[in-house]
């Protein structure tokens, strides 16, 4: 081997080492919904700006949750960035599994994040994941049916308003049901709705000593009201209806009202899919005057697992993907209705975005939810429609099955609540809370 060749090879090796140090390849786990898939299309823009490459691992929600949980708890190091929800973030942040995001650049403007979103993704005031998009829930109703009934939907209705409206709009002979709500069992299905609803009735999952509260009057009122509403004015088979089933019913014009995720607004107002697109009105989720409203709060956010070698590059990606610039780039290329909603204040101050019919109500709904104080009485957990503890998803699904069976008429509200109380109590004891 000649000297020149050796020198060349050496130089090449040095170059290679140098370029590895400057440009990383980030492996990012993400969920397979529209906004995330859209982000993948813009990966080149990130690579151009920073020199870092990105490898995507796109998974369905349940699988994603399982994969990232395994990876982070075993310190597997498969992913440099993870897409996680408002449920995981506080749990993992508390355990020190996530890199705190307290040193993001000034131009990123952390203060611009909606307080409700930042609150749900923080532990003791420290942000552990940056919201990519967020949502709440609200009332979607048929303006034409309300008009025909001679009623008007207040912007901030009470549960009694909802009941009266449901009664007036129900026309079972013509297959129009006053109200469609989630009934399918699952912590992210009927329990998301019922937990948020229970907050507005003054109920809570646990008292400050982690005692389950299903034996309280407030929960009984919540469940009785829900069952009464659904049995009288809901569609048949509601105990098997989740988000998708209700969306289909509403789009076919079979629901007078539907209280569900704010992201549904763009589907029910899209004339290609919805027969009632031009008749949909929006209102805040109902309350009972006790303080909290019956709406939830959720965010899909990006977090960095602790111990990663590529922390800086990962932070650069977070700053790129959840920045104002990203939103503007998407708006410019695909229109304002397609930008990731619910994460930043500045988006809702933008006059262009204010023209989107549901923008205003989405923002108001998000702002009324407080994940740090979701209920009337104090609680020891973070989360509006869930309690951010590791055991929640498991027992909430079982409680959901009991409530779903009550909706199907297989047991009374009292039986369902008694069973819920027992099984949550048992799980909390097994988990060592008491």
């Amino acid at each position, binding site marked *: 081997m000649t000297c020149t060749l050796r020198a060349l090879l050496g130089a090449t090796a040095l170059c290679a080492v140098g370029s590895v140090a400057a440009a990383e390849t980030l492996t990012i786990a993400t969920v397979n919904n529209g906004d995330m898939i859209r982000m993948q299309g813009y990966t080149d823009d990130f690579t151009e700006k920073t020199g870092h490459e990105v490898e995507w691992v796109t998974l369905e929600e349940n699988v994603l949750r399982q994969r990232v*949980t*395994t990876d982070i708890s075993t310190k597997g190091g498969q992913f440099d960035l993870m897409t996680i929800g408002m449920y995981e973030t506080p749990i993992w942040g508390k*355990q020190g599994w996530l890199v705190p995001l307290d040193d993001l650049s000034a131009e990123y403007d952390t203060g611009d994040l909606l307080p409700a979103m930042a609150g749900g993704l923080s532990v003791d005031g420290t942000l552990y994941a940056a919201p990519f998009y967020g949502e709440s829930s609200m009332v979607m109703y048929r303006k034409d049916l309300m008009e025909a009934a001679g009623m008007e939907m207040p912007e901030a209705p009470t549960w009694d308003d909802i009941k009266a409206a449901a009664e007036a709009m129900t026309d079972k002979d013509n297959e129009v049901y006053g109200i469609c709500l989630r009934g399918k069992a699952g912590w992210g299905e009927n329990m998301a709705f019922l937990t948020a609803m229970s907050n507005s009735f003054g109920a809570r999952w646990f008292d400050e000593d982690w005692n389950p509260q299903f034996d309280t009057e407030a929960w009984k009122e919540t469940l009785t009201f829900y069952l009464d509403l659904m049995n009288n004015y809901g569609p*048949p088979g509601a105990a098997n209806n989740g988000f998708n089933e209700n969306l289909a019913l509403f789009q076919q014009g079979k629901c007078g009202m539907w209280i569900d995720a704010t992201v549904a607004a763009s589907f029910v107002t899209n004339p290609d899919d919805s027969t009632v697109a031009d008749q949909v009105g929006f209102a805040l989720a109902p309350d009972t005057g006790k303080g909290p409203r019956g709406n939830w709060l959720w965010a899909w956010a990006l977090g960095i697992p602790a111990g990663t070698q590529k922390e800086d590059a990962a932070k650069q990606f977070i700053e790129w993907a959840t920045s104002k610039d990203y939103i503007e780039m998407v708006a410019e290329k695909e229109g304002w209705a397609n930008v990731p909603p619910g994460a930043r204040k500045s988006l809702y101050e933008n006059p262009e975005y204010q023209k989107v019919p549901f923008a205003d109500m989405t923002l108001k709904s998000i702002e009324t939810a407080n994940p740090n104080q979701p209920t009337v009485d104090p609680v020891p957990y973070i989360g509006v429609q869930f309690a951010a503890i590791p055991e929640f*998803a498991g027992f909430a699904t079982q409680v959901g099955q009991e409530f779903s*069976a009550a909706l*199907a008429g*297989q047991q009374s509200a009292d039986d369902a609540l008694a069973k819920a109380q027992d099984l949550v109590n048992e799980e909390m004891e097994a988990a060592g809370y008491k």
Partner: protein
Amino acid sequence: MATQHARAAARLMNAPAVFVLLVWMLIPLCMTVYFSFTDYRPLRGVFDCCVGFQNYERFVSSSSFLSSVATTLIMVGGILAITVIGGVLLALLLDQPIWGQGIVRILVIAPFFVMPTVSALVWKNMFMNPVNGLFAYLWKFFGATPIDWLSELPLFSIIWIVSWQWLPFATLILLTAVQSLSSEQLEASEMDGAGALSRFYYIILPHLGRAITVVILIQTIFLLSIFAEIFVTTNGAFGTRTLTYLVYQRVLESQNIGLGSAGGILAVILANIVAIFLMRIVGKNLDN
């Protein structure tokens, strides 16, 4: 006749394949056994090796265990009954010389190619839905109140959906058996004055015995792990939670790997008991 040498060589050549298969099966099984003796809850950051039979005790003593075993057995039994009886009848029907036989046979087999999640969604939303479903429409057409299938008759509905999927399999196997029956026997019995029913009972059914055994054994193995149909339709509510579904809930929803693994091992043991039981009773057919 193989010589000693050839036999040894054959074993040697088979060894890698056997080894790979064993490892393939054994590693996951051993890991499940190992996890079932640990307190492993990833979301909590707990990993505590060797907690004895604690997980097994908790799994068996939980109120949902016995009901889930019962649900599993009812479901498997129900589906077997429908598919075997339906399969025999369909096989006899398809054996008749009819016009367009080929196309009819392909159509009958078609459900087998539909993915379980897809078929469950189609049945749930297009047929059994009490507002938009076809059954609801039929019921209303005849002036009756539509049945809310999945919450009023949840077990029956799921049995029906799964049976629809497995009927083609049973039919296909039984049809080949029916076709292998020599027509001379049937003709002879007919001449002797045997009616259609006695011909079926004394000649066709015994002839089908072996095929029915195969159908029952293979289906039982697959049916003990029904999952997608339950996940899509009821999410385990209304008493449709089978043992497999309970294990899924413990591992994925409760994120309790230890407890779920114990449940998984129990499911394997129970499945083996059922299999041995079946082999004893119906498997005898295979020996003759």
